[in-house]
């Protein structure tokens, strides 16, 4: 997995996130009006495949995007480079995404 693949992955996830983050920010603003409540959140997401797919894709894109971003900063600021580090960052990104997807499944199945 070379730098070009990671650059492409970072841009593709960025384009997904550009849309997903706008949806997320609007959802936050709607949800906090009148106070956050579990019943309101779960009422929106329980059994709803559209939200499950949205949050699943969002979590995967965010997990990978964050890890690739940290990889770039660590390479520049700390000199952490090479295949071993790349695989470690990929692992961190995927584990992060799995927790996010687990949360999305929780919202669907709650």
């Amino acid at each position, binding site marked *: 997995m070379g730098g070009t693949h990671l650059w492409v992955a970072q841009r593709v996830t960025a384009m997904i996130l550009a849309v997903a983050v706008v949806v997320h*920010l609007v959802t936050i603003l709607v949800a906090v009006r009148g106070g956050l409540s579990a019943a309101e959140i779960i009422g929106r997401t329980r059994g709803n495949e559209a939200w499950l797919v949205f949050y699943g894709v969002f979590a995967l894109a965010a997990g990978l995007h964050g890890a690739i971003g940290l990889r770039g900063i660590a390479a520049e600021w700390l000199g952490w480079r090479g295949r071993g580090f790349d695989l470690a960052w990929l692992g961190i990104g995927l584990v992060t995404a799995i927790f996010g997807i687990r*949360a999305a499944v929780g919202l669907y199945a709650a």
Partner: protein
Amino acid sequence: MRPDPRPRSHPTYIAFLVHRLSGLLLALFLPLHFWALSNAIAGEATLEGFLRWTDNGLVKASETALVILLAAHLAGGLRVLALEFLGWRSSQKTMVAASAGVSFAAGLLFLLNL
């Protein structure tokens, strides 16, 4: 860290710095966010308990900071994509980023009732 000869007072450098620092903080927060939510969302009662735990000034201030960081990183990211994929010039993208950032921040501050 090697010294970089490029000028640092330029608006483009400020935009780069905001994008990098907001991205760094968001990337460090993200695993915590997902881990906490994946544990909290085990049913309506556990989620409600978690949400009531977040009802304090420190968490609310952190949430507001994170929302602003996310909006800033979104605006900076759109600037990068516009530069790389639409061929926009530096002056255009900086203005777009600045206006998007200011409008988002103003809107968010208003809607979060601060």
